[in-house]
């Protein structure tokens, strides 16, 4: 079984958002199909794994491991979070529908991930507070990164009726700007992500997109090495084959 686990391919998706929006509940719901009964603030990063059937229903169906890295959102741990950001193949942005500020803060989260991922251990990069869709594309060019697939989730859907006078919930602007798919869930209800529901279908489509992107980029230069391995002087870049070679 251990061999089987190592032989299967995997992708890594970051789940980020402000503190208290419901990331841990969401991840638990996605991976275990059940609601999280005792939620507490996530310290550091909590990883859950889901076995996802890539291209389900087609002859080329293959199981993939989807690792959901649920990064704790408290501000006091900001300076050490960057170690989790590299490498990443997809991003799930989570915001609280009852708190509009958490939605606006998603931009900061996205820029934090993109800048830290490209910068390694550099800490002097000024974080950009607001940026527009052009800059999102611009980041890709400047930092030589692939455009990461993004998925936006709004939580606490059941509490929205208390706070909003208008019935419909406006779609978040960041989803439009990044051309990302968006769903709203109630993390206390198992049926939000029941297999076959539209939310679950969109989520599967997002996972497929992430896997496709990862497949096209593993043939590229960086080869998916983590930043730790890049920083280590033992790894030297072989210019001929553009791959990393262990020396010493």
């Amino acid at each position: 079984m251990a061999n089987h686990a190592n032989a299967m391919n995997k992708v890594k998706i970051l789940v980020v958002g402000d503190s208290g929006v419901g990331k841990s509940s969401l991840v638990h719901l996605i991976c275990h199909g059940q609601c999280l009964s005792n939620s507490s603030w996530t310290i550091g990063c909590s990883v859950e794994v889901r076995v996802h059937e890539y291209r389900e229903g087609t002859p080329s169906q293959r199981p993939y491991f989807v690792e959901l890295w649920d990064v704790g959102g408290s501000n006091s741990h900001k300076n050490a979070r960057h170690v989790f950001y590299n490498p990443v193949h997809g991003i799930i942005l989570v915001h609280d529908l009852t708190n509009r500020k958490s939605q606006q803060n998603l931009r900061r989260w996205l820029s934090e991930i993109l800048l830290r991922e490209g910068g390694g251990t550099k800490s002097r990069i000024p974080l950009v507070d607001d940026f527009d869709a052009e800059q999102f594309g611009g980041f890709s060019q400047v930092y030589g990164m692939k455009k990461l697939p993004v998925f936006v989730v709004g939580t606490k859907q059941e509490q929205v009726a208390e706070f909003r006078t208008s019935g419909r919930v406006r779609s978040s602007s960041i989803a439009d700007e990044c051309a990302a798919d968006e769903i709203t869930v109630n993390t206390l209800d198992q049926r939000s992500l029941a297999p076959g529901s539209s939310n679950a279908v969109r989520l599967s489509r997002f996972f497929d997109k992430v896997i496709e992107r990862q497949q096209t980029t593993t043939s590229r230069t960086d080869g998916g090495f983590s930043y730790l391995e890049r920083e280590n002087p033992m790894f030297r870049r072989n210019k001929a084959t553009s791959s990393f070679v262990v020396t010493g």
Partner: protein
Amino acid sequence: MGILIDSAIMTGSMLIFFIGGWMWFVKKIFRDYEVHNTLVQLFFPMIFMLSCAMFELIIFEIAAVLESGSRYLYWQVVLYSMLIMLILVIPFYLCHFAVSNIRMVSREWVNLLSVLTWGVFMVCFWKIGDPFPILSTQHGILSIEQSISRIGVIGVTVMAALSGFGAVNYPYTSMNIFMRPVTKHDIQAQERRLLQTIDVIVNKKKRIALAEKERITSKVGDESGSRSRIWGLLRSVTASSPQGESLSTLKQEVAALEELSRQLFLESVELQNQRERLEWASTFQGRFFNFMGYFFSLYCSWKIFISLVNIVFDRVGRKDPVTKGMEIAVHWLGFDIDVQFWSQHISFFLVGCIILTSIRGFILTLTRFFYAVSSSKSSNIIVLVLAQLMGMYFVSMVMLMRMNMPLEYRTIITQVLGDLQFHFYHRWFDVIFLVSALTTMGILYLAHKQVNTSDKTESFYEPKW
């Protein structure tokens, strides 16, 4: 005519304070939350406005701006509104929010329960005054002396605790001798350990996920198969028991590893904080603060010593520093100065400085505290608690300020606040200051020692897998 101009000045300045407090609240404190309740948004700036108005009146008293009759009137207005807010309004809303946050309570009971809780709060508030020799017994139950005295006790406690903490913490954070050296290598080693731990966790979770999936599919296969039930039962028992055992041990290992990863992450956060402090210490600001830190630690040790002396020898009736300075200048150093003129200006300057630095320090501390403590559920309650604390803090600051002003300016405060035993408050301040400073020293010493020993043992630690 005079009173019209005075009213205009006062209302204008109070409007400015209100807007300032509101901007601070929206931009800094409630930065990450959406305000659902407009009342909460109003209370905080209102308390801030009333506090600043009190200080403004003190400054006007010293600088002799406005007529004394109108000053007294405004003192009464500000003080009464402050008292109503602090004792009646804010506690009621606090109880209301606290009760509605409890999930088990249904809608109709919320109002009743909040009134009851508020009643309990009022009784406790009254009982606070009993053990302290705060005031003489001539006053009736509903006089403002009763309420001010109790507010004063709480406010002075908060003030003294914060001063004690600040007095010890400031030298500790700004002086370089307390900072530990942290190299890039240390941080990278820590991060490598963290990522290795997480890799192991992920691998184990993958095995668990695969095992669970196989268990589900084999269960489905059994149900739809045509084998006899006993054969299927035997198979499932023998096949799943080694699986089941290893699954539960895997899950236990994962739980232990996750706890380890949390510890490693927190240590990594601490290392990054140390590195940032070291970087800051090499900047101009850092070096300046380091230099000032030496002076400040001298001042703090002197303050602690003086508090001890005050308590032990029960010193009463200290002269304010201005008059004392004047006496020294005139009698001992032989300066020939116009005492009246200079004492007014110097006390104006001194009191102004104290007020401004206290407000600024309080604002910064409050903001940081709110960021550290708040969450999306409790943000309303915390804002109200902070508004309450702020009101009590500033009222007691006015009370204690009396000692810093020369005799002729003290009368207005004595007049307005009533005949309280001011000496008690100073003694109480000294006691709490001493306790808080010593406690902070003890805690910082323990934390410093623990971090130093953990540094030494880190080099022995290596992951065993």
